[in-house]
């Protein structure tokens, strides 16, 4: 007894009793089969509701740039720029976003309390249009890096839009530089509240600018 047959007869307005006669079976069996089918439909519907088509957005309306260490000589950066910030920059520069030259500026901030101007050295990487991430390579191991995403102004200067977190490139060989030796000794004395080396995680709070 196929459910399709039952459905076809129901469609024609047959009662369960008539269908049973037509298909040479009992009313109970027809009803059971029919109910089962209805249940199945319900279940499928439920499943469908929970079965979202997975969506991985290509970008977010946020302003943020992040660095992650990949190797002693490379760090990975990715960023989001909101349309609001793009507009702000267009307003400031009186140029269309696509007309602006985008760059990342890579600062070596090893053991520096970086203020935007006091890096040991920096270099720029030209970023093509429609790019939201970059693998920065050929770096020196055991250094601290911060990057800014910025644009080139009409006057040729670099205007920073976003600043990243700081990240250390890992050490590769026996630590001959001894950058952290004093910091570890200081920390062991227990007289400091915070260590002098970089700890790689941010504290994020939603109301961060509300005091």
């Amino acid at each position, binding site marked *: 007894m196929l459910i399709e047959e039952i459905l076809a007869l129901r469609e024609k307005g047959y009662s369960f009793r008539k269908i049973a006669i037509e298909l040479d079976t009992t009313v109970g069996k027809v009803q059971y089969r029919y109910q089962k089918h209805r249940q199945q439909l319900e279940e499928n519907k439920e499943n469908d509701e*929970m079965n*979202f088509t*997975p*969506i*991985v*957005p290509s970008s*977010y309306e946020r302003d943020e740039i*992040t660095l*992650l*260490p*990949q*190797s*002693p000589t490379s760090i*990975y950066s*990715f960023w*989001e720029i909101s349309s*609001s*910030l793009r*507009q*702000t*920059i267009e*307003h*400031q*520069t*009186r140029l269309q976003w696509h007309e602006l030259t985008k760059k990342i500026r890579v600062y070596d901030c090893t053991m520096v309390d970086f*203020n*935007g*101007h006091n890096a040991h050295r920096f270099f720029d990487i030209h970023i093509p249009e429609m790019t939201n*991430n970059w*693998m920065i390579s050929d770096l020196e191991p055991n250094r601290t890096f911060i990057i*800014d995403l910025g644009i080139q102004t009409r*006057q040729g*200067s670099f*205007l*920073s*839009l976003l*600043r990243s977190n700081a990240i*250390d490139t*890992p*050490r*590769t*060989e*026996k630590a001959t530089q*001894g950058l952290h*030796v004093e910091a*570890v000794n200081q920390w*062991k004395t227990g007289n400091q509240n915070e*260590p002098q080396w970089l*700890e*790689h*995680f*941010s*504290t*994020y*709070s*939603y*109301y*961060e*600018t*509300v005091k």
Partner: protein
Amino acid sequence: MKEGYYSLVLHAHLPYVRHKEEGRLEERWLFEAITESYIPLLWELNETESKDVLTISFSPPVLEMLADPTIQERYLDYIIKTEELLGKEKKLAETKEEKDLVSFYINRYQKIKNTFIGYNKNILYAFRELFEKRVITCITCAATHAFLPYVKTKSAIRSQVVEAIRCFEQHFGKKPRGFWLPECAIAPGIDRILVEEGITYTFVDEHAVLNAEPVPSKGSGAPVYSPHGLILFPRHTTLSSKVWSSTLGYPGDVDYREFYRDIAYEREWDYIKPYVHEDGIRIDTGIKHKRITGEGEEKAIYVRKWAEGKIQAHADHFLYAIENEINEHGDQCYPPYLMVTPFDAELFGHWWFEGPEWIGQVIKKGQNRIHFVTPESYIDRHYQDFDTSHISFSTWGREGYGDVWINEKNQYLYRHHHRMETDLATVVALFSNPTDLEKRYLKQMVREWMLAVSSDWAFIMDGQSAVQYAHERFATHLSRFDVTKEKLLSGSVQDEWILRMEQCYPFLREIDEQIFFSPHDAYIQTKEEADQEQKRSILMLSWEFPPMMVGGLSRHVFDLSRAMVKEGHEVHVVTSHVAGYPDYEINQGVHVHRIKGLQPEAANFFDWVGSLNIEMTRYIEKLARKTQFDIIHAHDWLVGVTATAIKRSLQLPLLATIHATEHGRNNGIHSELQYEINQKEWELTYEADRVIVCSDYMKEELLTIFSMPEEKLAVIPNGVDIDLLRPYTGLSTIENNNEFTVFSVGRMVKEKGYQTVIDAAALLKERNEKIRFVIAGKGPMLQAYQQQVAERQLDSHVTFLGFVSDEERNEWFSRCDATIFPSYYEPFGIVALEGLAAGKATIVSDTGGLAGIIRHEENGLKMIPGDVQSLATQVLYLYNHPISREALATQGLRDVKSQFNWETIAKQTEDEIEKCLFGELELTI
């Protein structure tokens, strides 16, 4: 006497592959691990009488799946089905070797089934028993095996740690002391969180310790403390490679079972169909008939006896290698030399079929030859003897760093991982007092985040097989996270809906979502809600605010903001950062926020302003998460970009006050910078709903320069706070003689007209008049003026003081006989008001706002701008007519008090705000 200790560590982990629907391919990963690794390992461990032979880390996904009744039933089905297949194999077997092999498998599966049922289908009981008997030590790892150095926030790392510990405790009855770092991935700071959560030790790759700073005295021969006190056990590379090296490792021996020759690929389709995947895909059955044989494609049959022989030989070889290491390094003390070899548990049995038996033999044969130790026992004995060192980022993966988990194939993941983390912090802050139902939504979001960030997905994407599954699983959990978030935020929470979500992936029943609630947000939530009686919440933007005083703008905004607070408004002033002053303070009721741009020392002023505006905008958008503003009140072009951006993003009306124009200051636009500034001024007046200027003069200027509609403009004069002008009552710091003194204060720029004063002084000196000018203020022209005074020998008649304190300035106002403001251009002239308020006769240029304040010979005197003769005439008039001088001063003071007081101005400003909010029409009704 040489001494050394050996510690074997296994890490059991698989991603959470439990699906609601039956028969998913990936579920087999777990079944194979149970069949080939976990149960055979149990057999070996149950054989031994010794203690401390092994440390096993169980990841929470493995714990949750092994304890899951649905999984247990499905596993039993899997075993029964395999037994059925073996029954068919028996009939198929022809040679003696084949028959022996099939009966080996039949016996083995019988034993597996018995073991499984013997432990009530939950083999965790078996491991717990061994743990309690101290044969083994059990620990755990991050909740979903997240690659911790690529997790963004402390809270998220903490969540991975805390939930794992909780899960472990549920299954083992106590907290773990050790913690396996997924992929042995460590970075500075992770140690801190682990220690805070009560963890004592973990494992790192050898190079992490070899490259530590300071260099550990025992190299990798002993563990070290991380700076925060986590004990790090380095992996022993030489010994480990005996097992995992693909070329030289034991598993590659010719007599061991060949991993890639499963009968699934060798039998007829109709024969094998019921035992592989429903959808008609040939997948491993676990029954493999061949041995590795050699390099060629042709493989010979697997012979158990030969394999068993090799197990013995390789166990001996390994023990010999350990003894060799002790020979070489065993002089080390204290602590004594330690060798730790951590491996993936599934390597033994699943990949290397004979691996568990090899472990059994190493333990058995090793009992009388070497010292086994667990990290815990070793710590208990030697914790005082470890060095402390800084460890940099490292892993046990390819190249030793992050190459496997961040490359072109998987780098896209982290953008989403991090976004989910910040979303979690956001929703727990927004729902700081959740209902029970809302709480389940929050917990579900944490669960989906966890399942999305398993390092497995990145690892699989890096490799060749199941790549599609990894992408799908990641996308699935990301979407489920987002849908749950949307439902929660939109307020459509439903018991049935969230229940179905929970049932899809029943991972970790208990979750503490509050870990994501930052202490700062918690603090903000405890603060009382803003006083409801306040009328309007005003966001005032001004690049200068005390203590930063470049021109009169700073004082104006200071006075206005205080006056608005007095009128009952909430006022937030967002201004630029000043070194040594707080980023946020409440100054006389005014909330002051001081912002630093990303480039606070930008060489170009226009860039500096841009940098400031970008940061101000970002700051205010976040500030608005808690503070509801009613209106923006922007002062001058320097904050125009922010004002416009905020107007758009927060949908707020904008009121602008234009204090001066670039056109007016320079008598036209002559340079590129001036052009840019002029543009910014125009944009601000264009974007503003209403514009306030301080004088009719300025109104005319805006109407002309920017062609503004007149009805958008309002004139509100500047005010003066008479209290602030009270002279210093203590000891006088300035000279005190009876000379007739004319005082002025202003910025030393050309348009303020002090050149006229110098020239007039020369004239008066010629005429031998005993009149002296004292001028306070700094600016670019100061040096030139001072030099001129010296060169022309006018010291007796003019003094340029440069910068003076407010107290000193007030003293001069009090001490002088008259004041003078000789500007060429002056939109308003607040300093003239201060002269009036000080009760002194005041001379002003007949220009700009000044011209509107002073009525000649009624409340002061006027001079022709830039006219030396005119200036001298007016000064001499005051000098020679003391009674008129007094009368002018008295009237001036009266006018200031009535027209230019801040209460009046605040009320007028209030009217303009209301007009912005409701439009003109409603008000005129």
